[in-house]
């Protein structure tokens, strides 16, 4: 039921009231960033400059340090050496992270879970209104009063997306947020993510295993190998992009080769 309504709900709002951006995306750069756990060196000199508002995807083999990189970006960890520089230092804390699991509070109703994203930004009635608006954006307006445990996996992840977006982050870090979803829900969520990004223009950093997803969504795809950035592809294909278009397939082939090749 709601799976169907979300497309329509969003289309309606899209035309009428695109959320007003008070703060556009925030650029940042990693300069010679290293991260070691004990004597295991996970990141080995990452140099990466990401301009404001870019949608960048990061791909790499399992265990190559993608999550570690995102955790540094989200401030959950500190680099062993090197620096992470934000274009506007004061705004560094406006980075939000979406994890592979929804990580909703089971004891808070759906709307209250979204309001967690407004911690320190808004409270009371204002917080409630903004949370409900974001829930409508992700097509879950009618589920605001439910407990998370009754939602499906895809719906939970949409609540997590609403929570990440409600505070108008300037950087959104996404660590395989769609990895656990079935193929159809996944494509639907990709569309939702792209539409929201197009209207809000935060800087999006998407870690994914799915190269098809990376080339469909991102302006730029970087491949991580041996703890450093191996290749950097600009996906200069205009949006809206058609899934399975030959230009996308060509990029996908190249990137897969980078990933698998020696």
């Amino acid at each position, binding site marked *: 039921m709601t799976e169907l309504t979300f497309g329509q709900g969003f289309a309606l709002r899209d035309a009428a009231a695109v959320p007003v951006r008070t703060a556009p995306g925030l650029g940042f750069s990693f300069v010679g960033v290293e991260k070691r756990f004990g004597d295991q060196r996970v990141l080995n000199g990452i140099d990466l400059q990401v301009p404001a508002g870019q949608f960048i995807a990061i791909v790499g083999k399992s265990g190559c340090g993608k999550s570690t990189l995102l955790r540094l970006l*989200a*401030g*959950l960890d500190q680099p062993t050496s090197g620096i992470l520089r934000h274009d506007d230092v004061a705004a560094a*804390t406006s980075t*939000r*992270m979406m*994890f592979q*699991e929804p*990580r909703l*509070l*089971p*004891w*808070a109703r759906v709307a209250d879970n979204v309001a*967690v*994203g407004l*911690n*320190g930004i808004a409270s009371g009635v204002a917080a409630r209104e903004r949370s409900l608006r974001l829930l409508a954006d992700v097509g879950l307006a009618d589920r605001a009063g439910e*407990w*998370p*445990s*009754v939602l499906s996996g895809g719906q939970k992840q949409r609540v997590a997306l609403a*929570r990440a977006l409600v*505070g108008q982050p300037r950087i959104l870090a996404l660590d395989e947020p769609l990895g656990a979803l079935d193929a159809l829900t996944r494509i639907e969520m990709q569309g939702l993510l792209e539409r929201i990004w197009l209207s809000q223009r935060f800087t999006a950093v998407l870690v994914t295993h799915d190269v098809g997803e990376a080339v469909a969504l991102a302006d730029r795809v970087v491949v991580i190998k041996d703890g450093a950035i191996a290749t950097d592809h600009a996906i200069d294909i205009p949006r809206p992009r058609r899934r399975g278009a030959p230009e996308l397939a060509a990029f996908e082939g190249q990137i897969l080769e980078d990933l698998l090749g020696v």
Partner: protein
Amino acid sequence: MLRQLRGAAIGWLLPLAIIFVWEALSRFGVIRAHVLPAPSAVATAFWKLLVSGELLENIGVSTARALGGLVIGGAIGFALGLANGLSIRSRELTDTTLQMIRNVPHLALIPLVILWFGIDEEAKLFLVALGVFFPIYVNTLLGIQTVDPQLVEMAKTYGMSRLELFRRVILPGALPSIFVGLRYALGIMWLTLIVAETIAAQSGIGHMAMEAREFLMLDVVVLSILIYALLGKLADSIARLFERLSLQWHPAYQGR
């Protein structure tokens, strides 16, 4: 609703049948009155003690002791459980000691407690408090330690302060375990009180039973036992009600 009522009614069939058979066997002299009095004799004793006011007074005294001990022991257990769950320093300092004390059965302290406090109220309060302390301490600590670290990490990325983290994530996460501790503590609370009142008291239900025993008033003894059982059941039902109200979010309590 009707189905629920019928379900509850079915549950009472067997106890009623047992009472009926018991009464019949007593009337026909199969069960002698000095072994086990008939239900009707117990009911008469209940009525007499109720009218004289003795029964309610004793129930009041026992309940006050039970709740007093629960509040004191429970509060200390909860506070130490919180402290040791939230602070590694505090846990390192006190947990080993507490675990050592836990291995002493608290009822084994009765002779010592009588020497310390005589048979005054403090003796009963002390024993009940000591008995309920450990289940509440252990389960509060366990509840906090098993709060999902992924949720804690999530809360940090949204900039929650320590206080907010505690109020919105840690305490609700630990609550199911705390309730397990509370319900376990209620059982220990009554058990401790029964023993303490039977051995060293001048009022309360246990004392009423012991006094009746001296005068071979078996009906009052059986009545005391039944009242203990009812009080225990009542306490557990109240705890369950609170549990259901505060854990509505928990899948185990939904749709019931």
